[in-house]
């Protein structure tokens, strides 16, 4: 494996993000330019005068990475050069504050591969709710409490938003399935036009679990049906990762501190049923079980 994200970065032990980025860069190769929004990725890899990046890397703001990448791509065209243009950013910038910029890049059809490492909250600022935070997860701005069971809203369906822009390649991936992730990145960068890959990326501090369990938890998200692995090419569902015998969502939820209240508080049982229904809906929608 090429090491295009150098060791010595400052991410937490057990963080899935550097693994995701290394896999993405390994698949993309050295002829790649990366734009990153403000994120854990940015602050852990580029404290001046150090940098962990072995490919050209540009950071501007929290909410403009897709527009900045559009500028990189048109400049490549202008100078008759060829390189992969990647955005690698978290869910806060992707789902929320950068939505306008993402929509513009998708709609204009730039040849940019947008990779969201999705840890389902604003982790860099200390675990606040984002549009990607799942139903009833505890965050510091949707805490569980006497009258609250955590985040009151379900996760925003960002892949559907990308598909609504007719983005020709849209996929989900997981840090627990590196071969699948690498293959999807290769397909994405070969796409003529924009592509979007959303990678499940557990956060040890935000989700609260033991640092050795990162991959195990990511795998459970897939095995329960809560994180279906799929791929859309030109708007058509072309591939899903089948789940042989789906595990109950409790197996995934009980291993994380952010759902602890669901197993302790009155009303938690009802929520567990609702989350199971979400997993079942995914299993049915994507035909995850043969």
């Amino acid at each position, binding site marked *: 494996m090429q090491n295009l994200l150098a060791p010595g970065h400052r991410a937490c032990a057990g963080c899935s993000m550097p693994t995701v980025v290394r896999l993405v860069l390994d698949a993309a190769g050295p002829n790649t330019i990366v734009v990153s929004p403000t994120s854990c990725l940015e602050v852990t890899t580029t404290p001046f005068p150090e940098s962990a990046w072995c490919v050209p890397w540009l950071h501007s703001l929290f909410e403009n990475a897709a*527009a900045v990448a559009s500028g990189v791509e048109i400049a490549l065209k202008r100078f008759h050069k060829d390189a992969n243009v990647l955005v690698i950013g978290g869910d806060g910038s992707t789902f929320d504050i950068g939505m306008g910029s993402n929509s513009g890049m998708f709609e204009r059809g730039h040849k940019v591969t947008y990779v969201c490492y999705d840890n389902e909250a604003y982790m860099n600022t200390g675990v606040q709710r984002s549009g990607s935070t799942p139903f009833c997860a505890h965050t510091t701005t949707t805490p569980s409490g006497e009258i609250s069971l955590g985040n009151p809203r379900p996760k925003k369906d960002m892949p559907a938003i990308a598909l609504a822009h007719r983005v020709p390649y849209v996929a989900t991936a997981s840090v627990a399935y590196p071969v699948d992730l690498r293959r999807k990145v290769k397909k994405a960068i070969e796409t003529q036009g924009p592509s979007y890959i959303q990678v499940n990326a557990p956060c040890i501090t935000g989700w609260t679990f033991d640092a050795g369990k990162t991959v195990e938890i990511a795998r459970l998200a897939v095995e329960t049906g809560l994180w279906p692995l799929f791929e859309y090419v030109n708007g058509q569902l072309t591939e899903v990762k089948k789940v042989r015998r789906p595990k109950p969502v409790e197996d995934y939820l009980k291993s994380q501190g952010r759902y602890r209240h669901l197993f302790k508080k009155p009303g938690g049982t009802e929520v567990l049923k609702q989350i199971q229904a979400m997993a079942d809906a995914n299993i049915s929608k994507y035909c995850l079980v043969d």
Partner: protein
Amino acid sequence: MMKVVEGSYAVAHAAMCCSPDVVSAYPITPQTHIVEHLSQMVADGELDAEFLTVDSEFSALSVLVGASAMGARCYSSTTSQGLALMYEVLYNVSGLRMPVVMTVANRALGAPLNIWNDQQDSVGARDVGWLQLYVENVQEAVDTTPQAYKIAEDMGILTPIMVCMDGFILTHVYEPVELLDKEKVAGFLPAFKPEYVLDPANPKTIGAFADPSTYTEFRYLQFDAQQKALAKIEAVAKEFQETFGRTFGGLIDTYQAEDAEIVLVTMGSVIGTIKDAIDEMRAEGIKVGLVKVRSYRPFPVQALRKALKDAGVIAVIEKDVSIGNEAGLVTDLKAAFYNSKIRTPIIGFTAGLGGRDITVKDIRKITEKASAARKGIESEFEFLDLRTEILP
């Protein structure tokens, strides 16, 4: 050969002559005609550039961050709410030392919504790290555009520039203009060859974060670059004059100021009216003159001290207000004089807000008030022609 054209066309033509690699555009009144003309030039093959219509002014400038990091010469234009929406990116472009040139078609900011001219938008953005040049007529807007690139792209400066022209008054006026010759501009303005770009063959990290041990030095370097720009703006204006035979001043310009007892200080298109008023008053024996501030950032402290040292009284006229403390230009001018030996009385007028006309009569009134202030300042700062009858 002089041609009668619309101000927006003339500026778009000037931008085209600078051979930008990437142009981004988002429509907003009264800047819209500039991007429309540029679009037509691209459609007709007259402008060979990557031209991108985007989803907001915020994206318009963000796109240029990416393109500039690739080594592209970049152009955009905006105004008012659009400039306000860009605010975060403005700091970013200057902090990343990207020599973007942007025309600002000066317009008022809401609320209340108002599409007409004043200079609240760019004066309010005086601290974002961009150089700011204010022009008095369409010809100066044209001539300042290649000058702006030459100043911005200087390796010792590498700082973006706003070329500020009054919206409607200059963007929509038809007047005789000497359009630039592209070949001649190419001789005046060398190709942009930045030292650091995004290149997979030589990977660089651009936009790393700086902690307290280095952040101050990044800011200092920007401050220092603006100080260096003081000499560069003068030099480039002279060089332009040698090549093209025209000048509208470097950091400042003056009109009938040498022996003037009353000196008016201002920026932008109101200068035409002021010159007419001065001619009238001079004919009546009133010793009044003008100092035009062409470069608002960097603020030309020494040039202004020199030009104004013999004035009996100074009246600053400006189309902005610092809601809470006077207005931008008058405050900066007072600060420039405080530690000098100049003890000339200075009074400030905010005028022409939201497109209200400033007339020769207004200038005469200001001159009378300034003259009276020599015997003692009655009001340090005021709103000119305030309609007290409609106030609550």
